[in-house]
């Protein structure tokens, strides 16, 4: 331990950065404390060691301890000596003091941190404020400049306005001047014209005099004979009477014209009055009944009663068709009042409607309108659908009804033809089969018939032989009786022979008939017969006719 030098204070001050005023803390500052406290930067371990070694060395331990004790006691800490004098150190009090010092140190550090924070904040606030200040200054400058510019423009526009006004005035003045010029020129021209006209008149007078003086014999009328007046009357002298008559006639003409016009106007007036009356009645009927709501229309109350009186009066009076001023005014006034009332009423209704639109208070109305809209939409959709349906149906109808192009018709016809052809082919097949069957049957029948015929022949021969035997036997028995029965038998046999012959011949007939003419045409399927099937058709009737005729022959045989 050596002497700790007080020079460490400036060394420490070089390390420190900030100098603060120490103000807070609990265990504080005895009044004789220095106001300035040096901030101790968190020292590195090296400097710490060097610092510690600088303060206390092996030589000055006692002094450093007594110094520390003095300092601590002045700071308010308990002494670090075990007793008031002596050199034994109270370890506990030292540790406590150290602890207290550390705690104090921590507090001081925290306080420092807080102060630093505040310092930073205040610094940033100041920066911000300075920036704002700068910006506002700029804005102020800008707006000042703008104002100046606008003022300048305003001045320019005003001067322009003034110029235009001036121009307008000038133009007006010019127009006025030109008009004045025109009028002065016109008067000048008129004056000149009049002068020239007077001269002209003088010339005309002179000329007239000369013409009349010459007493031109040429100025005359040559006429073969005078013609009678158009109305057949004779010419009359002009007298005052005639003058008066003429005046009278003229006034008559004028009066009749005025009377006519007045009549027309009266008729028009009467019509218009009727129309006004009608309008008034209709307006009154349009207005809502006013007796039910006296409160709303209290203002119109007295007017109403007057009006009603007026109406009554007017109705009475108009029946007499008076047309004096007062009645006319009354009528027009009453109509005006009614019209105003109707207008107010309509305006009120309009306001109501608009209120409903904006507020939608009355739910019923709103809903009903919504419903109405929905319904209208539905109806519109329905209408659309129906229209589409109608369109499609129309198209289909058209397709069916209208004659299509030739190609399609041909195609269609060909389809039909194909169908028919197939059907016909089937039918031919059937017929052919039937024909074959019939052929077979016919053959079998013929064979059967032949067999039958042979059998019959044989039977007849047998019968004949047997009858012969019988006859012989009978004739031997009854030689003297020549029976009549045999002739019948004989006849019968001859008949049978004949029949046989007949059947034989009949057997031949169907053969002939088979090859007969094919004239009969069954009309069962003739609708769709085409050229292709004509040959088939020709075969058909033959086939049809065969069984018929064969049946006939059968019938004949069985007779």
């Amino acid at each position, binding site marked *: 331990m050596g002497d700790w030098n007080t020079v460490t204070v400036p060394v420490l001050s070089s390390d420190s950065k900030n100098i603060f005023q120490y103000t807070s803390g609990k265990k504080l500052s005895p009044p004789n404390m220095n106001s300035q406290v040096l901030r101790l930067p968190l020292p590195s371990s090296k400097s710490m060691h060097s610092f510690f070694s600088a303060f206390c060395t092996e030589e000055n331990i006692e002094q450093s301890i007594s110094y520390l004790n003095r300092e601590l006691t002045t700071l308010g800490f308990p002494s670090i000596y075990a007793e008031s004098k002596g050199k034994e150190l109270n370890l506990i009090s030292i540790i406590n003091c150290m602890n207290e010092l550390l705690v104090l140190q921590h507090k001081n550090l925290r306080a420092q941190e807080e102060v630093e924070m505040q310092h930073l904040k205040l610094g940033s606030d100041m920066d911000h404020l300075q920036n704002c200040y700068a910006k506002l200054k700029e804005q102020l400058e800008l707006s000042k400049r703008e104002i100046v510019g606008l003022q300048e423009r305003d001045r320019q526009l005003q001067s322009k306005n003034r110029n235009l006004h001036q121009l307008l005035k000038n133009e007006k003045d010019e127009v006025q001047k030109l008009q004045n010029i025109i009028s002065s020129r016109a008067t000048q021209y008129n004056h000149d014209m009049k002068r020239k006209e*007077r001269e002209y008149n003088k010339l005309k007078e002179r000329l007239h005099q000369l013409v009349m003086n010459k007493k031109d014999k040429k100025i005359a009328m040559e006429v073969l004979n005078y013609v009678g007046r*158009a109305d057949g009357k004779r010419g009359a002298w002009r007298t005052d009477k005639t003058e008066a008559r003429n005046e009278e006639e003229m006034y008559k003409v004028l009066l009749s014209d005025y009377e006519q016009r007045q009549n027309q106007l009266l008729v028009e007036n009467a019509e218009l009055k009727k129309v006004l009356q009608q309008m008034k009645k209709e307006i009154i009927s349009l207005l809502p009944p006013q007796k039910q709501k006296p409160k709303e229309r209290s203002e119109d109350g007295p007017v109403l009663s007057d009006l009603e009186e007026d109406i009554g009066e007017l109705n009475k009076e108009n029946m007499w068709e008076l047309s004096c001023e007062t009645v006319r005014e009354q009528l027009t006034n009453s109509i005006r009042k009614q019209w105003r009332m109707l207008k107010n009423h309509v305006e009120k209704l309009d306001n109501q409607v608009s209120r409903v639109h904006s507020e939608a208070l009355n739910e019923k109305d709103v809903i009903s309108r919504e419903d109405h809209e929905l319904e209208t939409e539905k109806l519109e959709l329905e209408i659309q659908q129906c229209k589409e349906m109608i369109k499609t149906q129309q198209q289909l109808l058209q397709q069916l009804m209208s004659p299509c192009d030739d190609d399609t018709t041909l195609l269609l016809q060909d389809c039909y033809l194909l169908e028919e052809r197939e059907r016909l082919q089937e039918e031919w097949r059937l017929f052919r089969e039937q024909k074959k069957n019939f052929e077979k049957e016919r053959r079998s029948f013929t064979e059967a018939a032949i067999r039958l015929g042979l059998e019959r022949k044989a039977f007849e021969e047998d019968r004949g032989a047997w009858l012969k035997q019988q006859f012989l036997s009978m004739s031997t028995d009854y030689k003297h009786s020549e029976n009549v029965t045999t002739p019948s038998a004989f006849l019968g046999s001859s008949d049978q022979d004949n029949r046989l012959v007949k059947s034989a011949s009949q057997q031949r007939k169907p053969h002939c008939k088979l090859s007969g003419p094919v004239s009969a045409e069954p009309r069962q399927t003739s609708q769709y017969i085409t050229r292709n099937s004509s040959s088939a058709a020709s075969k058909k009737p033959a086939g049809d006719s065969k069984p018929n005729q064969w049946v006939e022959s059968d019938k004949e045989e069985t007779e």
Partner: protein
Amino acid sequence: MNFSELFKLSGLLGRFSPDGRCLASCVQYRLVVRDVSTLQILQLYTCLDQIQYIEWSSDSLFVLCAMYKRGIVQVWSLEQPDWHCKIDEGSAGLVASCWSPDGRHILNTTEFHLRITVWSLCTKSVSYIKYPKACQQGIAFTKDGRYMAVAERRDCKDFISIFVCSDWQLLRHFDTETQDLFGIEWAPNSCVLAVWDTCLEYKILLYSLDGRLLSTYRAYEWSLGIKSIAWSPSSQFLAIGSYDEKVRILNHVTWKKVTEFEHPATIANTKTIVYKEVEKSPSVETERLSFPPTRALASSLFSTQSKYDISQVPVSLQYIKPVADRANPKMGIGMLAFSPDNCFLATKNDNIPNAVWIWDIQKLKLFVVLEQLCAIQSFQWDPRQPRLAVCTGNSKVYLWSPAGCVSVQVPVEGDFQIVSLSWHSSGDSMALLSKDSFCVCYLEREEV
């Protein structure tokens, strides 16, 4: 429609007689009177000089032929072809001549409008009217023929004198508030006389028969004013056509403007029907061509057929702005005519010379516009029904009625440029006049 053949004509002088039985036409110095239905020549008269004007008397018994160069008026009688009458104005000269409504007096206006001489065919009396005004329509007779209004000018002021036609007594004489009277016209009801000023002033004055001023109407100042006017047949409306391309309608009760009809170059209203004449070239059937070509075939090959198409609104019409430094410019409403049933008004805007505008008077709206290929020369309403005949200087006549409109080619050989037309009083036939010929067109009752 049947067309007669072409007959010679000079000076556009072809007139039907008021009773509708005859048609008078002039060829140089000859007056030819034909029967209307057969067009056979009934009478042929020869005058002393080239005829400049003819007029039938109101009872269709006499025709006057005026020869201005010689200052002679010759009157011919239909009943007695031998009867002759010649009025010689001598050195006084002749500028205009007309009949009085009773058909027995002839009013001759001498040169320089020195005086109007009233010659009587019944008596030897002669009357003079002094200081007549030298204007377009200086004499106006009422429809019933009772009164005659004459415009006069004394001491640089305009006056109107009303005479009774039966005895030529002066009824009224009053001055008018016009700068320079341009024309006078009686209303069909004979009670109102419309007097209008020169085109430098838009002013129209309405006077009653007894000379009282009923009303004055001025639409605007300084611009060119009234160009033409027309009374409606019922005297209800007075249509005034002016140089600003508008027609203003006044009503007879208040004499105030009822409405204005504008004639813009673009028609935008969808309710207006626009008929546009289009040419369709005739189809030639090559099988039918024969050599040498027949006359009818030749004319039909070279004549272009035309028909009417309905154009879709909006339609823009051909607008012509006239030269600004000429007097009496071709602008404004130059032609106005009411239909006889008072339902339609036909107008022509001279700025749009190819179109006829037909207005519905009951609705006071534009009803139909007929757009032609050439400029309209003249149009006239059928005196019996609302049917309008239009001619544009080619050989077609166009007819419009509310049922539709049709363009008919007159089947004549050679050039026939119809410049004027006039209806027969019965509405069954029409005379189509060109510079040197005319033809009569007969219409069937059911047509158009």
